[in-house]
């Protein structure tokens, strides 16, 4: 560790001071040390880095976070919490208080599901489960999480467990004297033939600047169907990088949905490794941004074996000075014949100052594949707006109807009915107008 000095870290040295200069001790020491070495080489990404070209989150963090210490759990009562449950959606609930599982506030899990702190795993288990993939490009922020996380959660679902309710992962975030950064770490492993839905919510309990740097690894079991649904409706000052890496084996499907509504700057990295035949990965997202909110979705799906399928649909409506970034990578390996891969990103800009940068990135090494992708960016359809208004519908309502119709195509993809209804409400609230 002593070999690492801040000189070698080209980016963000002030930020890194917090983590370097002392040898990691306690649990995960060797994992942390490896992460530190790696990070020392690559540093945190600046906008010169192709992957972070449009998202200066490193700069934002450096310039706005004043205390890089871990935010410790804060005082939260059940009544504080109630407002953050999703109305009408019945769930098993795990509450994370500044990144740490709060047993008091969390409810029971159903049969077949166990949750353990990572620190309770044996050294071997630990290394096997949480070591970052070698020989694969790891996002620097994932590496940072590996270096800096406090503890994490290992969620295991037994073979054939069919969950009757989603598991809610509720993150309560509040900056206090101890620090402003939080590095949640979650590992999910499911057995074979599991059906489960996860809902992830982040609730900012104050309007302070916080930096949430989550890393989530999901190992789906064979023949399992897993949904991961996420809402990002955070404080106006919230900074977030979220890394999720999912392994999808034979006969399994994994579906991700993310609705991003508010935050200062949010970067989502989603990687789906389709590891075998007859598996499916779905990536759906909506970002409705206003003010100065900046939302960046980077997705990456890797088709490795014949006969796998991926579907991707992200839609954005951007207004004010907000900014959206979409980058969708599809990788089809030479072996992966008969791959079906669909990708679509559509955007509506409602103001002159809103910006979207969208880019599909296809790398196809097999020859017998069906691949399609498309990106569009436009304004509201004036012709349609006029048509609706000539029927007596106010301009405001007509706009809302059209925008809602645009976003609705993604909302329809949500499998869970009451959660979908909740998202519909949030989207309608944001778009304004009144229907019916």
């Amino acid at each position: 560790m002593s070999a690492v000095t801040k000189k070698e870290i080209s980016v963000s040295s002030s930020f890194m001071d917090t983590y370097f200069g002392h040898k990691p001790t306690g649990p995960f020491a060797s994992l942390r040390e490896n992460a530190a070495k790696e990070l020392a080489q690559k540093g945190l990404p600046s906008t010169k880095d192709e992957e972070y070209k449009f998202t200066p989150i490193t700069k934002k963090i450096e310039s706005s976070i004043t205390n890089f210490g871990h935010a410790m759990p804060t005082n939260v009562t059940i009544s504080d919490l109630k407002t953050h449950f999703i109305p009408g959606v019945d769930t098993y609930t795990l509450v994370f208080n500044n990144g740490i599982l709060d047993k008091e506030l969390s409810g029971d899990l159903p049969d077949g599901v166990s949750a353990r702190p990572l620190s309770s795993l044996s050294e071997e288990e630990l290394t096997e489960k949480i070591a970052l993939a070698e020989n694969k490009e790891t996002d620097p922020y994932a590496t940072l999480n590996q270096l800096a996380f406090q503890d994490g959660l290992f969620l295991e679902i037994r073979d054939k467990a069919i969950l009757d309710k989603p598991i809610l992962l509720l993150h309560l975030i509040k900056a206090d004297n101890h620090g402003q950064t939080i590095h949640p770490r979650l590992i999910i492993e499911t057995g074979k033939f599991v059906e489960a839905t996860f809902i992830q919510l982040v609730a900012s309990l104050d309007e302070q600047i916080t930096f949430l740097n989550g890393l989530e690894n999901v190992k789906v079991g064979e023949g399992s169907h897993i949904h991961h649904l996420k809402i990002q409706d955070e404080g106006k000052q919230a900074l977030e990088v979220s890394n999720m890496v999912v392994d999808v084996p034979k006969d399994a499907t994994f579906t991700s949905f993310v609705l991003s509504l508010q935050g200062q700057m949010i970067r989502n990295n989603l990687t789906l490794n389709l590891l075998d035949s007859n598996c499916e990965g779905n990536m759906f997202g909506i970002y409705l941004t206003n003010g100065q909110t900046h939302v960046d979705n980077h997705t990456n799906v890797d088709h490795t074996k014949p006969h796998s399928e991926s579907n991707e649909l992200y839609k954005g409506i951007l207004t004010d000075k907000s900014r959206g970034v979409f980058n969708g990578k599809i990788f089809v390996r030479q072996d992966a014949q008969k791959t079906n891969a669909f990708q679509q990103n559509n955007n509506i800009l409602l103001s002159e100052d809103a910006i979207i940068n969208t880019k599909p990135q296809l790398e196809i090494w097999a020859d017998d594949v069906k691949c399609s992708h498309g990106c569009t960016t436009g304004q509201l359809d004036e012709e349609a707006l006029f048509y609706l208004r000539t029927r007596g519908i106010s301009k405001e309502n007509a706009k809302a109807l059209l925008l809602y119709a645009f976003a609705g195509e993604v909302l329809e993809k949500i499998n869970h009915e009451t959660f979908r209804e909740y998202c519909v409400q949030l989207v309608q609230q944001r778009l304004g107008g009144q229907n019916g």
Partner: protein
Amino acid sequence: MLTIKNLHASIEGTPILRGINLEVKPGEVHAIMGPNGSGKSTLASVLAGREEYEVTQGEVTFKGKDLLELNPEERAREGVFLAFQYPVEIPGVSSTNFLRTAVNQVREYRGQEPLDAVKFLSLMKEKMKLVEIDQKLLSRSLNEGFSGGEKKRNEIFQMAILEPTLSILDETDSGLDIDALKVVANGVNQLKSAEKSTIVVTHYQRLLDYIIPDFVHVLFEGRIVKSGDKNLAMELEEKGYDWIKEEVANTAV
């Protein structure tokens, strides 16, 4: 009901309407005919409030109000309805949801209670019969993937639901086979009353066999150059528009 005086309108600086005068009284049916590009749709759009057109001169009053002061939705709520020549396809907006929003906004403006789901449904059913529109069509997104004829039928259906006092039908007959034409005309005729007026924009005389006009006007190069009764439509059908063009050329000299 509707008085148009010396109406001039242009788009992107190009004058299209060049001094239209027209008076429509309650209960009357006016047909506006004319060759392609003469400004018929422009007139219809200006009356409905399309913002791309700039009114450069003249005035339009509707039921005593300055129509040009109102935005499109206010005009609709006052009772102006435009059946589009090219109805717009709107994916993702359900026909039913759209219509209910429209009806209730119009009702709100007129100081009426909103229709609940049940009442709205029965209104829909009643009007569906009138224009013989298939329920299946209405369960789809608004006009999406509709055939030309289905779109036109849907326009008349919307008209039936919204009960306007002035309906402007812009080439509702084009693209319709004779059976569909009869259905549409029948729908229009059933909605007619002593208080309601209709402006039928058409290229052909055909529709006027079913919707009998009180007046026929010929629009040419942005002006009404000839007016008459339904016999004028017959004459146009027989002789085409060339003789009108010649007349205009001669009087202009």
